[in-house]
C-alpha cells in the first residue's frame, strides 16, 4: 500500500494530513482483518469512522509478536525480515513487503529531513552496530544503514565485526578510527548505542575535536552499563566537551522494530511524534486514554505496513505526551521500560523459569 499521509509533511498538523492518516489506518485495518484471522477475531467489533475513534482502537500486546508469527501476507511477498536486538528472552520480528519497506524509508527520510539532519554533503560514519553486510536481519543494522543514506558517504566504519563466530566490539580499532576521522577533511556522524560511546570516552580518556558539523545520532535505548549513572543532558555535555560535537547535534532516536516509525529528538532534545503515527497514553488500571501530561502505558499506532499486523499495539514503555507549541509534532516523553515488575519475592517468575 502507498499511504496517503506521505503526501504531507512528516509533522504536518493540517486537517487534511490528519484525515489522510485516518484513511490509511482504515486501509491497514481492513487489509489485516481480511488477511489475518486473529486480527479479524480481535478487531471485528471495532468500527473506525472518525478521528476520535482512534482513541478506542483495540491493541495487541507487543509481546505476542515475540512468541508468534502473525504475518498477514504470503511469505513470497516478504522483502525484509527484521528482528529486534533482543536484550533478553524472545526477539521481536518485523516483516516488510516491498511497499512497506519503501514506506519505512520514505517516512524516515522525511522525519530526518524536517529535523534538519539530511544533507548532500559527504560524511564519515562511525556506527556502533553490526556490519549490515553480515547482520542483515537486525533492525539496528538496518536503521544505521538507512541513516547513513541521508547524506553523502565517505567512509563507514562498523564497530562490531564478525570474527567468524560472533560479533565482537573492536575497541582498539574504534579508537584508532575516531582519531583518524578527527583528522579527516570530512565531518563525522557517529551512530548507535550511547552506552558504548560513553564507556569508550571515559575509559580511554578520549579528547578530540570532531568539528561543529559533526553529529552523534544515538539509539537503542538509554539504559545500560555505567550510563545509568548520568542523565542525557550530562551525556550531551560530555560529548561536546570531549569530542567537540555541538550539543544540538547530539540526537537520540527512539524506535521499535515492530513499529518502524522513528521518534527523533529535535534540536531542543525532545522526541517528536510525526503524523505517521499516533501514540495514545492509557491508564494502566482502566486502559482509558489519558490526556496530555499524564503518565501511562503507551499504545503505538501506525498505518503503512500491510504485511505485519503491528499497526496497533501496547508497548512495554511508560511515558506521556506533551502538547507541542511549535510546527513540529507533540513531544513523546519516555519514562522507562514497563511490564517486567521488579519482583521482590521468593516466588519464581516466568522469565526465570525459562532460563
Amino acid at each position, binding site marked *: 500500500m502507498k499511504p496517503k499521509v506521505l503526501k504531507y509533511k512528516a509533522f504536518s498538523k493540517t486537517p487534511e494530513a490528519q484525515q489522510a492518516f485516518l484513511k490509511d489506518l482504515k486501509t491497514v485495518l481492513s487489509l489485516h482483518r481480511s488477511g489475518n484471522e486473529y486480527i479479524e477475531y480481535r478487531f471485528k467489533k471495532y468500527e473506525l469512522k472518525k478521528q476520535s475513534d482512534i482513541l478506542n482502537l483495540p491493541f495487541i500486546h507487543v509481546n505476542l509478536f515475540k512468541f*508468534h508469527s502473525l504475518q498477514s501476507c504470503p511469505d513470497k511477498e516478504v522483502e525484509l525480515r527484521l528482528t529486534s536486538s533482543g536484550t533478553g528472552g524472545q526477539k521481536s520480528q518485523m516483516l516488510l513487503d516491498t511497499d512497506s519497506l519503501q514506506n519505512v524509508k520514505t517516512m524516515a527520510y522525511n522525519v530526518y529531513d524536517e529535523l534538519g539532519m539530511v544533507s548532500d554533503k559527504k560524511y564519515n560514519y562511525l556506527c556502533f552496530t553490526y556490519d549490515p553486510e553480515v547482520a542483515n536481519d537486525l533492525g539496528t543494522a538496518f536503521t544505521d544503514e538507512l541513516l547513513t543514506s541521508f547524506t553523502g558517504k565517505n567512509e563507514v566504519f562498523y564497530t562490531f565485526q564478525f570474527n567468524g563466530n560472533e560479533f565482537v566490539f573492536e575497541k582498539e580499532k574504534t579508537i584508532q578510527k575516531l582519531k583518524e576521522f578527527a583528522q579527516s577533511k570530512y565531518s563525522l556522524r557517529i551512530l548507535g548505542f550511547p552506552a558504548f560511546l560513553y564507556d569508550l570516552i571515559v575509559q580511554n580518556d578520549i579528547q578530540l575535536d570532531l568539528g561543529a558539523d559533526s553529529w552523534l545520532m544515538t539509539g537503542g535505548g538509554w539504559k545500560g552499563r555505567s550510563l545509568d549513572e548520568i542523565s542525557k543532558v550530562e551525556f550531551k555535555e560530555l560529548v561536546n566537551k570531549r569530542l567537540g560535537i555541538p550539543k544540538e547535534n547530539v540526537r537520540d532516536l527512539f524506535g521499535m522494530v515492530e513499529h518502524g516509525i522513528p521518534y527523533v529528538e529535535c534540536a531542543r532534545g525532545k522526541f517528536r511524534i510525526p503524523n505517521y503515527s499516533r501514540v495514545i497514553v492509557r491508564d494502566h488500571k482502566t486502559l482509558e486514554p489519558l490526556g496530555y501530561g499524564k503518565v501511562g502505558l503507551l499504545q503505538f499506532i501506525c498505518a503503512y505496513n500491510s504485511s505485519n499486523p503491528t499497526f496497533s499495539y501496547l508497548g512495554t514503555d511508560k511515558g506521556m505526551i506533551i502538547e507541542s507549541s511549535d510546527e513540529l509534532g507533540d513531544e513523546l516523553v519516555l519514562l522507562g521500560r514497563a511490564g517486567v515488575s521488579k519482583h521482590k519475592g521468593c*516466588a519464581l517468575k516466568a522469565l526465570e523459569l525459562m532460563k
Partner: protein
Amino acid sequence: MFLFGRDYIFNSSAKQLDEVIKASQVAKTDEWPSIYRILDILDELSRLWQPGTEYFEQALSDLDSAEQFSHEMNKLSLMQLSGLFSKTENLKRLKGELDNPLALDEFVRTKRFEGNLKYEPLGIVLHITAGNIFLGAIDSLISGLLTKNVSLIKLSQSNTVFPKIFLDSFKVADKNNELLSKIGLLSWKGGESEIETFLKTKVDCILAWGGDEMLKSYKHDLPGNVKLIEHGPKVSFQVLTHKKFNQMKASGFNKLVSDICLWDQSACANAQALYIESSIEVNDLFLKLKAAFEQFEFSRRELSLDENLEKYEAFELSEFRSFKGEGEYLRGNDFFLEFTSNSLLSSSTLNRHLLVKKFDSVAGLEISIKPFKKFLQTCGLGCIPSETKTFSNMLANAGVKRITDFGSMLKISSGAPHDGSYNLADLVQVCSQELEQSPQAFALKMCDEIPFYSKLKVLKFEDIPLANSELYQKYSPGKSSELLNPNRAAGIIFSSGGTSGKPKYCFYENTEFDLVADELAKSYENIGLVSSDKVANLFTAGNMWSSFSIIQKALERVVNEQFPMGATLPAEEFIELQERFNINVVFGLPSLLCDLAKLSPSVKIQKVFYAGEPMRKSYKEILEKQWGVKQFISAGYASVDVGPIGYQDETCEGSEHILLSSLVHLEIINGEAVVTSKVRRGMPVLRYQTGDRVKIIEKRDDFLKFELLGRADSLINIWSSRFYLSDITSVMERLGVDQFQIILESTNSEDILSFNTTTELSEVIQNKILLNIYASAKDISHTHPFEYFKKHCKFKCLDLKRSEKTGKISNLIDLR
C-alpha cells in the same frame, strides 16, 4: 536503621561500611546469652505481638498506609509474628533441626552422635531478604539469633514501615541489649555492587532469599571462606485427581484457592499452576474455582503499572491460545484462570493468575515437572488416600520439597524443613567431642554450675562430697534450687521419695530423659527384646513415679506395639487384653506381677522384665507355673535419683549387671556403689551413694560387670551386734523360704527381730533358720549366746507389708 544496639543512619559510604564490619567483628566476640535466654527474649516479643496489642495495631495501621497488601492480608501477616517468636515453636524448630538446643551453649549429648556435640555459629551472617513480605526478614533474623550468629539484615527498600516499630518492640523485650547488640539492620538499593562486593568479602555467611539475579550477583567472585546459603526463587503448584475432584465440596475449592490468593502469590509456597487429571472437564473446574475466588475473603491489592502490563500480556497470550484452540481462560475481577494444553510446568504472572494444566498419568506429570527440579518447592496435593503414596513418591523424586493439603501450602509446620533443607543446621558448624568422656572433668564442671557445690570450691573430683538420699531430700526441688542448674533446659520432675515417706524429688531435662531411654532401649535389645514383641507395661503409672514413663519411652524405641496398662488394671481385663493382642512380654514389679499371675492362670507370657525388687525364687516359680514364663530379665538396675546404672545380658547370673558406662561412672567406696552421672546437668548426680553393696566381677576398658550384693543400709544393728540382711536372706533361701520380711521392733525396752513369712514354718525349720543365721552372723555369736538370740527372735505368719508409697515389699522394716 540500626546497628548493634543503637540507631544508625546508614548512607553506605565506604567509611560507614568499614564501621559496620568493625562493629560486627566486635559483636562476634561478645558473649551470647544462653539459648534458653534467647528463647525467652523472643518469647517476650511473641507476647508483645499478640493480635490487639499496641505494636500489632500500630504496625497494622502503618502497613495499611503503605498499600502493599490489603488490610486483611496485612492483618494475617502480623498474626504470624507471634508464632514466629514463640518459645514453644522455636524450641520445636531447634529440636527438629539440631536435636539438643543446649549444644548451642556447650558440648552436650545429642541423638546425632554417641558423644558430645557443640554447635558453633558461623560468625557474621548477612541476610539478604526477599521484599515481598516482612515475615521473611523476621524469620531469617530469628534463624540467625537462634544460632548465635551476628546478623546483618539487608532490608528491602520497599519495607520501610515495619522495621521501626519492630525495633521499638524489640527494645522493650530486650532491655539489656542482649540480642539487639548482635543485630544490624541496613538498607541499600539492591544491585549496588560496591556495597555488595565489600560486604561479601567481610562476612562469614550470606543467607540469601530472592531472585536468580541477586543470587548470581552474590555468587560472583565470592571468597572461598564465605558460605552462601541460597534460597533462590521457587515455584509451587497443585495437583488434583479426578477422584478427589468428584469428592470435593465448596470448602475444598476455597482451600485450594486460598493457596493462590494469600499474599497475592508473592510467596514461593503460593500455587502458580494447578495440574488436573485429564478427565476433569476444564469448564466444570473453572466454574467451581470462580465461585471460590469470588468468595475469597481478602481482595487483591491494587496492581502496579508494571504488574498490570504483565497481566495484559498474559491476557493477550491466553486470548491467542484460545483462538488457536490451544487453551481456555476465565477472567474475574481480581483473578485470572488460564488453561493451556502445554503441560510443561510454567509460572504465572502472579497476583492471582493460575495456570491450569492436564496430566494423563503419574508418570506423565513427572515428565512435566521434573525439568524444573531445582525450582520446585511446595505441592498442594488433592487426591484420595489410596493415591497419596504414589503421588507423594513421584513428587519427592521429581524434586518437590513439601507436600501439603490444599489450604496448607503457606502454613509451614514448625520443625518442617524450609526449602528442602534445615536452615538452622546450615547456620552452624558442628564440633564433635570425640574425647574419652572424663566423668571427673564433667563432675567438676557441674560443681562450678550448681549452687550447692559451687560454694564448696571443689578442685579435685575426690574432694566432691559424697551425696546421698538425705542430701537430696534436704535440697529437693520444690523446696530448694541448690542442686539444680540455673541454666537447665525444660524437663520433668519425678518423685524419688522412696519408702521412708519423706517427700523427695529429682529433675531430668527432657533430653536427658530421652538419652536414658535410648540407653535402656539398647540394653533391652541386647538381651533379646525384639520389635515384634508385644509388651505390656505393668509398672505403676502416675504419682510422679518414673519407672512407667521411662519404660514406655524406652519401649517406643524397640517394639512396634506396647500396651501401657499400669499396675492397677483388673485381672479380668488383663486376661482379655493379653488374649486379644497376643501379649508375650510384661514389664513390672515382681511381687505385683505374682499377684496378677495368681489371678490369671490362663495367660501365657514368654518374658518378664522386672525392676524395683529382686526376682525371688518363689516369684519365679509362681510366674513359671501360672504364665509359663521362659525368661526373667532385669529391666535394669536403677535409682530414680541417678537413673539407670546397669543392665543384664545373657552372661549375667543372679544379680550380676553390666554398668551403663555411657551414662554413669562407678566408684566402690567401702563396698558401696557410688555413682556419678556423665550426662545429667539439669540436676547433676555427683558421687551419689546408692546404698547398694556391689562387687566387681569383670572390668576391661569401658566394660564393667558387677554383682549387687544387697543394700548397704540393710545392715542390721541390734543387740549391740551388727550383721547384714543378706546373712539372713541366704539362709532363708537355702531352706526354701523365699517370701519373708524381717521386722525390728522394740518391746519393753528390748529389741525383737521378727521373721514374717507368708507360710507357716515348722518348729524344725524355725530352729534350722536360727542356728544357721547364728553360725553365719559372727558378730552375734561373738556377742551373745544362742539362747539369747533365740529368745529375741519371733516368727509370724502374716501378709507381707508393702510400702504405701511405692508398693514395694521391703525385706527389712525397722519399727524401733
